[in-house]
């Protein structure tokens, strides 16, 4: 079977800076893949390229055998790639329910005329999807709260719930555990595992090595925009190239 996501020789330049250079990689159906690398390696940029959030400089991305390189971000989302953001982008003035309904609206489409005519079935579908996503993320109790009033940890779940309301096939998480304590991180790991067991493919960036190593079946390592390793957690943790990349970046930081 072909991979769910196929990244082919993708590059992104910001002026002279090669944020992502000639990156290739895959996510198989149902797989949990981790993407790791030092700060500034280009991980977030790669996610932005996959979701067509930023345009590619070179290369192409295939999702479910379809070339998505030239699509718009909302079209990619509708095809089934949902994401969260490194710097938490919930809509603070909207209620939790309304936040999550955004994902459902993305999946089912939004027409002013269905609003004018008060299409009941459409509204029911949006509600059902929103409730399902809220329940999956354990947020049904806070549905009517304004998002800004949620704790940081809960807002992370809110962002994931919103992505789940899209009913994606691939979920992309950018540093989901950042800012969480150990207990919360462990809970999040279980939650992602549960989603994966339900058939969702996962691609995530995380600096918490323990989290990535226990959760992911395969890990891609990135440094200075390039892929330097790709393998099981076992293989990656024993790879001298990977160790050097991390140590190298630490030396630079120290300097």
């Amino acid at each position: 079977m072909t991979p769910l996501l196929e990244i082919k020789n993708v590059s992104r330049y910001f002026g002279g800076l090669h944020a992502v250079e000639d990156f290739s990689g895959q996510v198989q159906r149902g797989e949990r893949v981790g993407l790791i690398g030092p700060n500034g390696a280009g991980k977030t940029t790669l996610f932005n390229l996959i979701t067509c959030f930023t345009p590619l400089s070179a290369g192409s991305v295939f999702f479910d055998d379809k070339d998505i390189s030239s699509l718009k971000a909302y079209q990619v989302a509708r095809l089934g790639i949902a994401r969260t953001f490194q710097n938490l982008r919930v809509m603070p003035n909207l209620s939790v329910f309304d936040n999550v309904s955004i994902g459902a609206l993305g999946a089912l489409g939004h027409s002013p005329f269905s609003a004018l005519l008060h299409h009941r079935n459409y509204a029911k579908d949006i509600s059902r999807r929103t409730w399902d996503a809220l329940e999956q993320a354990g947020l049904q109790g806070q549905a009517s709260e304004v998002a800004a009033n949620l704790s940081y940890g809960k807002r992370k779940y809110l962002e994931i719930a919103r992505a789940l309301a899209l009913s994606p096939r691939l979920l992309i998480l950018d540093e989901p555990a950042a800012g969480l304590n150990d207990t919360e991180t462990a809970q999040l790991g279980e939650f992602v595992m549960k989603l994966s067991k339900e058939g969702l493919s996962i691609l995530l960036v995380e600096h918490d090595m323990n989290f990535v190593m226990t959760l992911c079946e395969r890990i891609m390592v990135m440094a200075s925009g390039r892929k330097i390793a790709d393998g099981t957690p076992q293989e990656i943790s024993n790879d001298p190239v990977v160790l050097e990349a991390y140590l190298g970046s630490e030396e630079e930081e120290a300097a």
Partner: protein
Amino acid sequence: MRRIISVSLLLAAVLIVVPGILTLVGGGYWFRVMTTIGVFSILTMSANLITGTTGLMSLGHAGFYGIGAYATALLSTKFGWPFYLTLPVSGAITAAFGILLALPTMRLIGIYFAVATLGLGEIIHVTLLNWVDFTRGPMGISAIPGVTLPGVFTASDTTHYYAVAITALIAAFVLGRLTHSYYGNALRAVREDDQCAASMGLNVVGLKIQSFAFACFFAGVAGGLWAHTTGYISPGDFRFSESILILAMMVVGGLGSLPGAVLGAVILLGLPEFLRPIGDYRMIVVGAVMFFSILFLPRGLLGETPVLTVVRRQFGLAWDAKSNLGWRQ
């Protein structure tokens, strides 16, 4: 049930109580004041769709108001069209102009969009002023027929009040459904974080154009009502200062809040009338009301978040009256 009561109360207030009071206090003049407030309520409710709900600060709304007014004035004076044709057609013409003019600005955000729409408003104003063959320039267009239906009713201050009131109710109904439904959530998502909204599958440019189209439609209808009810229009009615007035009404009432838009229009136009006995000081009072309401209630007198909940509950726009959030299947 709750919905029927709310709708009945609203209709009774607008169609019976207010005109009743106006008649008691002397009719005529007060009906004209209320007609102006009604026209500006429609303008503010519609501008609120773009600026309050979708989050695009528009400073050119008076321009679209002007297009609608001139469309109606010309259609009724040159071709003798009755109000029930001029109003919707003027709305459609204005919406078409709105879409055409707005298309190039759709990629702009924040202050850039505001300045671009300010420019659009000025272009429209200057065009009305200088295209003398078509608009009669600064002389304006006079002798625009009022709202009449031969054999049924004739133009009068009362008729005009009812024409504006009923149109405002229709506008409130349409804009209310757009903003209090799930579709409204999509518009608010564009306002809160357009890039994130796009990543969640929302067609951001489409939503912006749609809100512009609906807002311009009602701005055009408001212009048409202005033309019919005053009988005379000139480019001076549709200047930048009107756009600013609309913006002020919106902010005082509460950005993104439909009842707030109406309240803003009532306060900023009604207050100067009430305070007429104190002469020129009254504008100081109006300014102070604006200043302090923003200072103490920056989200407006009727802020969006609580009003959304209340209106959804009272008018059955929520999908589940109990939780006010959505059907549980």
